[in-house]
């Protein structure tokens, strides 16, 4: 029965495919490849979630969270172009810590969840938090690292005038935080009217009432913001030894 529904749904692809066949056959090929990749990726993710929900063990969910943080860290470092060997652990630990702290707070304190550590709640919430922290982590880490390079004189000036290392990096932490928060500030003000959050749609499709969906969306968006700031702080703190030598000079 489900296969029939999938087949009927897939028939809708005939509309864009037909249009492309008529107007742009070259793009049709790319379209086909993209659809194939999308189906494969979503299927893979769904299978992973199915396993997690099926076994529903806390340790399996946490192991999955560790792997997710590590994989996300690889993606961050590829974008920022920093060596995996030196920065994988700091970035993965930052993503993991931000998601874990905020995720557990949401699950145990904020949301009316009976089985807080159950995979059905834990997995999507943690995935959402890690995903958001990953995107903001790219902005934060790249800003921090490139600002230190471009403005090394300011760091040296502060150090030379007796400021501790921790205080001398604060102007650069500020810039990283600006880079993390600015897109969020710009996006939050249009969330709902100009941009329909997929999150809200997902919760509605999951059977929640509109009010519950609103509250859940709100809490999860706030959680994403908190998680991204915690992740950034941990990432920058743990990356410090890789960025500076023992004389306080940028490597």
């Amino acid at each position: 029965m489900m296969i029939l529904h999938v087949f009927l749904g897939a028939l809708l692809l005939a509309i864009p495919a037909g249009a492309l066949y008529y107007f742009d056959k070259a793009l049709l090929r790319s379209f086909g490849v993209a659809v194939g990749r999308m189906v494969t990726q979503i299927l893979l993710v769904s299978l992973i979630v199915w396993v997690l929900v099926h076994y529903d063990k806390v340790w399996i969910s946490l192991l999955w969270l560790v792997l997710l943080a590590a994989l996300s860290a690889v993606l961050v470092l590829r974008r920022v172009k920093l060596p995996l060997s030196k920065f994988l652990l700091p970035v993965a630990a930052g993503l993991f810590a931000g998601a874990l702290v905020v995720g557990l707070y949401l699950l145990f304190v904020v949301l009316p969840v009976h089985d807080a550590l159950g995979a059905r709640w834990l997995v999507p919430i943690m995935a959402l938090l890690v995903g958001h922290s990953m995107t903001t982590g790219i902005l934060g880490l790249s800003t921090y690292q490139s600002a230190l390079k471009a403005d090394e004189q300011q760091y040296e000036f502060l150090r030379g005038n007796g400021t501790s290392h921790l205080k001398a990096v604060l102007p650069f932490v500020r810039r990283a935080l600006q880079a993390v928060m600015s897109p969020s500030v710009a996006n939050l003000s249009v969330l709902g009217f100009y941009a329909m959050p997929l999150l809200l749609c997902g919760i509605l499709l999951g059977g929640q009432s509109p009010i519950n969906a609103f509250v859940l969306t709100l809490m999860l968006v706030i959680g994403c913001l908190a998680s991204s700031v915690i992740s950034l702080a941990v990432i920058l703190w743990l990356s410090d030894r890789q960025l500076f030598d023992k004389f306080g000079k940028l490597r």
Partner: protein
Amino acid sequence: MLEFKDATIATEGKILATGLSFIARDGELTCITGPEGSGKTTLLRTLMGFLPVESGFVSVDGELLTVLSAPVFRTLMVYLPQQVQMLAHQLTPPDAPSCEADGYAVWNALMPQAVKAEAPPPLSPEDIFRLEEQTLLGAGDKSIVIADEPAANLTPELSRQLLVMLRQQADAGKTVLIASRRQLLVGHADQVIELKVKSE
């Protein structure tokens, strides 16, 4: 008082300066001079603890300068680095980047591109002087003043005003050590140390 005694400075296996010996005394304006590449900046950066002393020693008020002691000594120092004109963000912190609402906020996971921060625009001579003045006057009772080419980007008039300020610091009993090739500063120093370009 600052002392270099037969100091050799090296980093990453490359010797930057050898056999440096001199004393910069309290209440005096000491000027390191010499052609470009002679090691003036290297010397000052070593004194700040940013570069290691390979052999010989450097002392501050009789205490040995090491990697561990350098941060403590720096609390006694006022430092004007060579590229002071690049400290625009010290005078005016940068604003947050302006962002348009787009796809990588909170409702999906499109990955943004990495950001590449640009160097700040150079300061004008007036702003350089303002920053140097703020730094020197805000030093309080710090006993050592170190300035690397402090007049390099100043007008002749501002250079004279800077010299007056440096002289005031020395007259207040501080150790003032500068690196400069400006004749105005070299000519008014109590002690001039001339470095030569190290032959390969």
